[in-house]
């Protein structure tokens, strides 16, 4: 995950704050996990969130999604549903128009179905 984050952020410093990551603390099924990312920002042409990147720690690959935003969004709030293979840490990084990086992380516990169905 660290490598994937570096690839996006480059040499910039990541500060914690301004980003809120909403995930259920206990997930009933890792196949469909509702997630909301919100970033405090005036979303004006002079000062807005340019992109939101979400990463995971234990899935087969570290990316979850990258979204491009702009002043036409009014609010930097995105909701979607993700897959989580295991209990792990999720990190959201917001990139602002002035080149700053802000982040938040959340630890999620993922439980799986008690009885697994045969694929056949």
């Amino acid at each position, binding site marked *: 995950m660290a490598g994937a984050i570096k690839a996006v952020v480059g040499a910039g410093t990541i500060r914690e704050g301004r980003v809120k990551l909403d995930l259920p603390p206990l997930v009933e099924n890792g196949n469909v996990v509702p997630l909301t990312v919100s970033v405090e920002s005036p979303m004006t042409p002079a000062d807005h969130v340019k992109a939101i990147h979400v990463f995971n720690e234990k899935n087969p690959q570290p*990316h979850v999604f990258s979204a491009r*935003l702009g002043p036409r969004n009014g609010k930097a*709030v995105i*909701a979607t549903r*993700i897959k989580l293979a295991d209990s792990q840490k999720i990190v959201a990084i917001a990139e602002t128009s002035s080149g700053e990086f802000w982040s938040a992380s959340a630890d999620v516990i993922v439980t799986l179905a008690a009885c697994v169905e045969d*694929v056949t």
Partner: protein
Amino acid sequence: MTNVLINAPKTAKPGEIVEIKALILHPMETGFRPGTNGRIIPRNIIERFTATWNGAEIFRMEMSPAIAANPFVSFFAVATESGTIGLRWTGDQGFLAEEHVAITVG
């Protein structure tokens, strides 16, 4: 074309920030799952979702296999003028889905 459910307001006041929600039918096969024969089921995902307002792009989401099947997205947009909100999904195996909804602002 595949099934899509969209939740967008039909009218809005100028400058109002509206929520747009879209749900699309798609397996989002990760490419990491073994099938019944033990071989990996090939990846088949939606890679990109874009939203336009009267043609101008207002939102874009690059998806990975970590997005859940039948992907759901919710985002916000400032109601600038009346017209058409365009939603577009593209992905593996030449997947393409497009929907348009009209909105009256004023």
